[in-house]
């Protein structure tokens, strides 16, 4: 075998492409002598190194390409990133400025409104204190600087047996109550407070002499379960001065002062002395008792609802028998006739 054939076969051996014939030829050659074997191994070593050299060179070239691609992509990415950055600088700053401006505006505006609200709240709370100071009872305090002072108010008859209802705040601090008839101011009858509730602001008086009243029965009834109807026409009769005064208005709210559900807001003009005045609807039923107003505000008065009156009457009915008129005699009368009938049962009271 010549050297050319040997290197050819060695190459095929390394590449694993020997056919059977060539394989036998090679084996025959190698087994011939030790020298041949050595020669083959030398060839093998050389061919292996050569292929390896080219393979590694190829691999290195591939690596170089890969590195170039990598760098190129990095560069492109960097350019892209700088472009994005430039765009951001160009438009992003504008956007950021406008967003910040909007936020600042919103913040300031919100803060201002918030502050306004706080201010309003303070004012409101001030108002509340003022209002509570101003919620003066409708007392007509005369000679307040003198030693003997007395308070005037109004009371109305519940039944013909000498039971009267009035405001509790009138009688709260005093011991003697004098009841004066509207038709005859010269006669004063002593009355006794038999029940009262400061919270509900209702007091029940009993006349010492029941014959003081002309008839046994009152012409009107007390509607204990009056459902509040906003805008319902109502009127009131009371002694804001020495003679009786008529006042007319409407129910204006379901609740009274400070959202008190025991009372309601009415738009009847009231004055000091009106405390304890009955509030009638146009059927001639008592639906409330005037108890107070907001000082300095026109058209806002408060009346205790008759439902509270019922509570008081229930509590005293355990000990004393109370007969309450259930027959409304003035139901179908016109207003002026109703008033005429009612007036004798409205009393001026003086409290010492």
């Amino acid at each position: 075998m010549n050297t050319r054939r040997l290197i050819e076969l060695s190459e095929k051996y390394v590449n694993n492409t020997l056919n059977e014939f060539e394989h036998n030829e090679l084996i025959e050659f190698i087994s011939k002598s030790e020298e041949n074997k050595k020669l083959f191994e030398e060839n093998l070593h050389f061919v292996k190194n050569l292929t390896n050299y080219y393979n590694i060179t190829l691999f290195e070239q591939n690596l170089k390409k890969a590195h170039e691609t990598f760098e190129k992509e990095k560069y492109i990415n960097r350019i892209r990133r700088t472009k994005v950055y430039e765009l951001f600088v160009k438009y992003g700053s504008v956007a950021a400025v406008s967003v910040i401006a909007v936020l600042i505006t919103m913040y300031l505006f919100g803060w201002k409104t918030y502050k306004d609200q706080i201010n309003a709240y303070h004012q409101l709370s001030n108002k509340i204190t003022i209002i509570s100071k101003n919620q003066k009872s409708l007392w007509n305090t005369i000679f307040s600087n003198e030693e003997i002072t007395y308070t005037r108010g109004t009371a109305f008859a519940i039944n013909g047996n000498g039971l009267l209802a009035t405001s509790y705040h009138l009688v709260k601090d005093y011991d003697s109550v004098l009841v004066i008839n509207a038709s005859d101011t010269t006669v004063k009858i002593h009355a006794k407070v038999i029940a009262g509730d400061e919270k509900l602001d209702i007091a029940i008086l009993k006349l010492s002499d029941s014959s003081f009243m002309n008839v046994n029965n009152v012409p009107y009834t007390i509607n204990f379960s009056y459902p509040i109807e906003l805008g319902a026409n109502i009127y009131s009769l009371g002694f804001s001065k020495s003679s009786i005064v008529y006042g007319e208005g409407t129910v204006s709210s379901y609740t009274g002062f400070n959202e008190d559900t025991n009372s309601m807001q009415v738009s009847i003009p009231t004055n000091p002395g009106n405390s304890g005045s009955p509030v009638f609807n146009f059927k001639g039923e008592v639906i409330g008792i005037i108890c107070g107003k907001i000082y300095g505000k026109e058209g806002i008065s408060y009346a205790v609802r008759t439902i509270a009156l019922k509570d008081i009457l229930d509590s005293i009915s355990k000990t004393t028998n109370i007969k309450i008129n259930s027959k409304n005699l003035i139901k179908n009368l016109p207003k002026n006739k109703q008033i005429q009938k009612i007036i004798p049962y409205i009393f001026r009271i003086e409290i010492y």
Partner: protein
Amino acid sequence: MKKDSYLEEDNLINGIKENEEMIISYVYKKNFPVIANFIRLNGGTNDDAKDIFQEAMIILYNNLQNPEFKLVSKLNTYLYSVSRNLWLSQLRKKCNVTDSIEDVADYIQDNELTFEDIEVLNLNKKRIELSLNLLGEPCKTILSYFYFYKWSMQEIAEAMGYTNAENAKNQKYKCLLRLKKIYKSL
């Protein structure tokens, strides 16, 4: 086939073994930044990183040529630990430090080439390179056409102006024998 499954570990390793340009590029892109970062953090430059990583890839390639070699760890772990060890040994040489840098052969693969094996491989490669430089034209071109570009004999004959493939083949073997002679003499 999904792209993901195409790029599975086995495919990557096989691609490296078969010297596939695309796969090498992919592995390069995935692994180089991590190693470059490590080397930059340990007193190296980007060029150092490039050299070290390429060396590690060549070690992997050489290892993969051995059919008994088996990669136990994941590809990226292997590349990282090889690069790391290469860089640390280079640092050690540079700074003349012997023990302060711990040299952990964390991931030992089955039938891995030893440091000496690699040295021998490099030496042989250099010897071939030298022989080729001494060989001269047209032998160098014929051999590179055949071994490097994997052209057929017919293509080589056309490119080199030989009448037929058999002629080219004869010429190739002549060159090969000449080269062998040079190689032996070195």
